[in-house]
C-alpha cells in the first residue's frame, strides 16, 4: 500500500511541479515569465527576442514597405499601437540587428470630442502622448477628429497609386532609394493640437448621436476616423498607413464584420494590406500578435500606453455587436486557447473575388471607380445581388412595410428612385436645393443608399437623417448621384459604352 501511495505521489508532483517553476522553452535556463501558447513559456529575454523578431519578419516576409518609404503610424495611445511605435523605434535604432529602413511619422487622432471628454481631459491625454512622440524623434501630427467635418470630397475617391506598382520588389526599392536622396526629412512637427471650436465638437457629436445604436455609432466613428487618417497621409505625402490591429482585435473584427453584413469586404478589412484607397496602402504589421503578448511586452518593457475611453467603454456585453463579439471571442478563448488563432488563420485565407471588375486596364482613372466603390467604406460594392437573393427579398419586404406605414409614396418612386431619370429642369435645381431632385425625403435616402454597400446601408439606416452626415460625404453623394443620372439621360445616345469597353 505504501508503495502504491508513493508512486501516486510521484506522479502528481511530476505533473504539477513544472507549472510553478517552469523554465523557458527556448533557452531552457531562465525562469519563464510569459505563456505565449499553451505549454510554451518564455523567459523575459527570449520573449523580447521573439516579439521583435516577429515584427521584422512580418515586414520582411510581406515585402510591401520599401526602404526610404514614408510610412504614417496611426497611434491611438492604446496598447497595440503604442507597442507598434516602440517596435518601429527599436527597429530603426542603430543597435537593431536588422535595421528597418523606412521613414516613419506618427498621427494621433484625438477622439475625445466624439466620446464627450472635456477640453482639459483631452489636453491632458495629448500632453502625455506628446512626450512619448517627442522621445521618438519622428515627425508627428495631432489631429482632432473634428477636422473630419472639413474634409474635401476627394477623400472619398480612390486615387491612382502615386508610383507605378513595380514589377519587382527590387525595382520598387530602387525607386524609393532614389527619390529618398532628394527628399530631406522635414521635421514638420505640429506640436500643438489645432484649437478646436466648441461648435465643431457639437457638430461632430450631432453626427454620431444621430446614429441610434451603439453598433452604428461605432461603425460611423471608425469610418470617419479612417477618412481622416487617409486624408492626413495624403496631404503629408505618406504612401503607407500602419495600423496597430492585433490578432485578437482582428479576430473580433472578422466575426463582427460578418455579423454586420460586410462579408464581401472582410478580406480587405482584416488582411495585412489594404489598397482600397489606391495611393495610400493600409498595412497591419501587428496582426501576428495576440493582445496578451502585447500587454505583456508593454508591461515588461515599460512601453507606456495611454488609456482613452472609447464609445463603448464601461458598456455591457450586449451594448453593441462589436462588444458582444469581443466578449464571445474572449470567453471562448479562456477554455479554448486556440480560438483567436483559428479565426485569424481563417481570415488570412479569405479573398474577395471582384465580380464586377472590368478586365481592362482603365481602373486607375478615378472617375471610373466611383460606380463600384461604396461611398463610406470605399470597398467594392456588393449590393448588386441577383434578383433571387436574400438581399432582394429583404429589400422588397422593407419596401412593403414602408408602404403600409405611409401609404402615400408610390412604390415606383421608392424602388426606382435611383434608376428613374428625372427631368432636366429638376436636376438644375438640385444644387441650390441641396437635395436630390425629388423633394421627398425618403427618396433622397434611397438615392443615398444606392451609393453604399450593404453594411454601410445598415449603418445609415440607423441614422435619424442622412443630412447629419458631414458635408463632404453629402456633396460627394450628390456629385455621384448627378453623374449617374446624367449617364442615364444620355444613355440612349451612347455607342455601346457598357462594361465591356470595346474601343471604338
Amino acid at each position, binding site marked *: 500500500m505504501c508503495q502504491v501511495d508513493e508512486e501516486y505521489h510521484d506522479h502528481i508532483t511530476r505533473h504539477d511541479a513544472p507549472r510553478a517553476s517552469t523554465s523557458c522553452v527556448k533557452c531552457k535556463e531562465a525562469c519563464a515569465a510569459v505563456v505565449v501558447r499553451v505549454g510554451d513559456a518564455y523567459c523575459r529575454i527570449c520573449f523580447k527576442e521573439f516579439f521583435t523578431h516577429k515584427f521584422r519578419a512580418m515586414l520582411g516576409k510581406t515585402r510591401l514597405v520599401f526602404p526610404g518609404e514614408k510610412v504614417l503610424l496611426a497611434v491611438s495611445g492604446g496598447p497595440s499601437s503604442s507597442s507598434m511605435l516602440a517596435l518601429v523605434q527599436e527597429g530603426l535604432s542603430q543597435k537593431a540587428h536588422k535595421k528597418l529602413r523606412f521613414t516613419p511619422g506618427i498621427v494621433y487622432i484625438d477622439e475625445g470630442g466624439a466620446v464627450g471628454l472635456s477640453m482639459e481631459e483631452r489636453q491632458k491625454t495629448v500632453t502625455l502622448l506628446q512626450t512619448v512622440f517627442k522621445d521618438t524623434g519622428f515627425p508627428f501630427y495631432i489631429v482632432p477628429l473634428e477636422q473630419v467635418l472639413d474634409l474635401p470630397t476627394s477623400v472619398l475617391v480612390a486615387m491612382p497609386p502615386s508610383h507605378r506598382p513595380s514589377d519587382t520588389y527590387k525595382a520598387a526599392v530602387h525607386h524609393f532609394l532614389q527619390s529618398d536622396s532628394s527628399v530631406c526629412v522635414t521635421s514638420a512637427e505640429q506640436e500643438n493640437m489645432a484649437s478646436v471650436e466648441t461648435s465643431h465638437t457639437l457638430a461632430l457629436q450631432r453626427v454620431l448621436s444621430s446614429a441610434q445604436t451603439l453598433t452604428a455609432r461605432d461603425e460611423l466613428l471608425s469610418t470617419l476616423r479612417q477618412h481622416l487618417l487617409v486624408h492626413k497621409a495624403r496631404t503629408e505625402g505618406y504612401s503607407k498607413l500602419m495600423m496597430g490591429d492585433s490578432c485578437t482585435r482582428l479576430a473580433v473584427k472578422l466575426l463582427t464584420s460578418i455579423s454586420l453584413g460586410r462579408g464581401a469586404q472582410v478580406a480587405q478589412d482584416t488582411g495585412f494590406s489594404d489598397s482600397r484607397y489606391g495611393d495610400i496602402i493600409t498595412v497591419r504589421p501587428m496582426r501576428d500578435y495576440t493582445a496578451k503578448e502585447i500587454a505583456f511586452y508593454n508591461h515588461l518593457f515599460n512601453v507606456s500606453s495611454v488609456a482613452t*475611453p472609447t464609445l463603448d467603454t464601461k458598456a*455591457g456585453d450586449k451594448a453593441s455587436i462589436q462588444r458582444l463579439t469581443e466578449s464571445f471571442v474572449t470567453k471562448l478563448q479562456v477554455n479554448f486557447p486556440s480560438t483567436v488563432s483559428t479565426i485569424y488563420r481563417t481570415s488570412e485565407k479569405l479573398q474577395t473575388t471582384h465580380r464586377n471588375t472590368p478586365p481592362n486596364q482603365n481602373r486607375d482613372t478615378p472617375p471610373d471607380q466611383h460606380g463600384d466603390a461604396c461611398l463610406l467604406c470605399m470597398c467594392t460594392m456588393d449590393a448588386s445581388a441577383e434578383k433571387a437573393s436574400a438581399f432582394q427579398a429583404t429589400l422588397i419586404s422593407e419596401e412593403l412595410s414602408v408602404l403600409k406605414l405611409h401609404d402615400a409614396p408610390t412604390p415606383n418612386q421608392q424602388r426606382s428612385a435611383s434608376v428613374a431619370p428625372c427631368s432636366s429642369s429638376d436636376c438644375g435645381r438640385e444644387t441650390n436645393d441641396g437635395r436630390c431632385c425629388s423633394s421627398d425625403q425618403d427618396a433622397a435616402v434611397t438615392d443615398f443608399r444606392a451609393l453604399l454597400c450593404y453594411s454601410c446601408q445598415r449603418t445609415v439606416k440607423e441614422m435619424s437623417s442622412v443630412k447629419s452626415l458631414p458635408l463632404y460625404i453629402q456633396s460627394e453623394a450628390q456629385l455621384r448621384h448627378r453623374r449617374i443620372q446624367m449617364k442615364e439621360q444620355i444613355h440612349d445616345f451612347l455607342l455601346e459604352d457598357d462594361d465591356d469597353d470595346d474601343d471604338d
Partner: protein
Amino acid sequence: MLPACGDNMAAPVRIILEFGGGAELLFDGMKKHHVTLAGQEQPWDIKQLLVWIQRNLLKERPELFVQGDSVRPGILVLINDADWELMGELEYQLQDQDNIVFISTLHGG
C-alpha cells in the same frame, strides 16, 4: 506550501496592486494601490484577493472586472511580472511585498 494548521495567524500581507489597459477606469483612474491585507487564519490567495478587491477597491460595475470566481475573460493577471498561469492562477498564495498586476486587453478597457 500546505496551509498552516492550528491557530497561528498569518501576519498581515502588504502587496502592491496595479491596474492597466483601461482596467484602472473602474478604480477611479488610480493605477497603483498599496494595500495591506489583514492577517487571517489561512494564507491569502488570489481568489480571496479578488473578493477583497471587489469589496474594498472596486468603484463600479463589478461584472466588468470579475466573473464568477475569477477575473473577467480578457483581463490578464501578472504575479511579480510573471504570467499567473505559471504561478497556479487562483490558488497562488500571496507573499508579503508581492506585486499583482491586472491588465485589460479588451477594447476600450
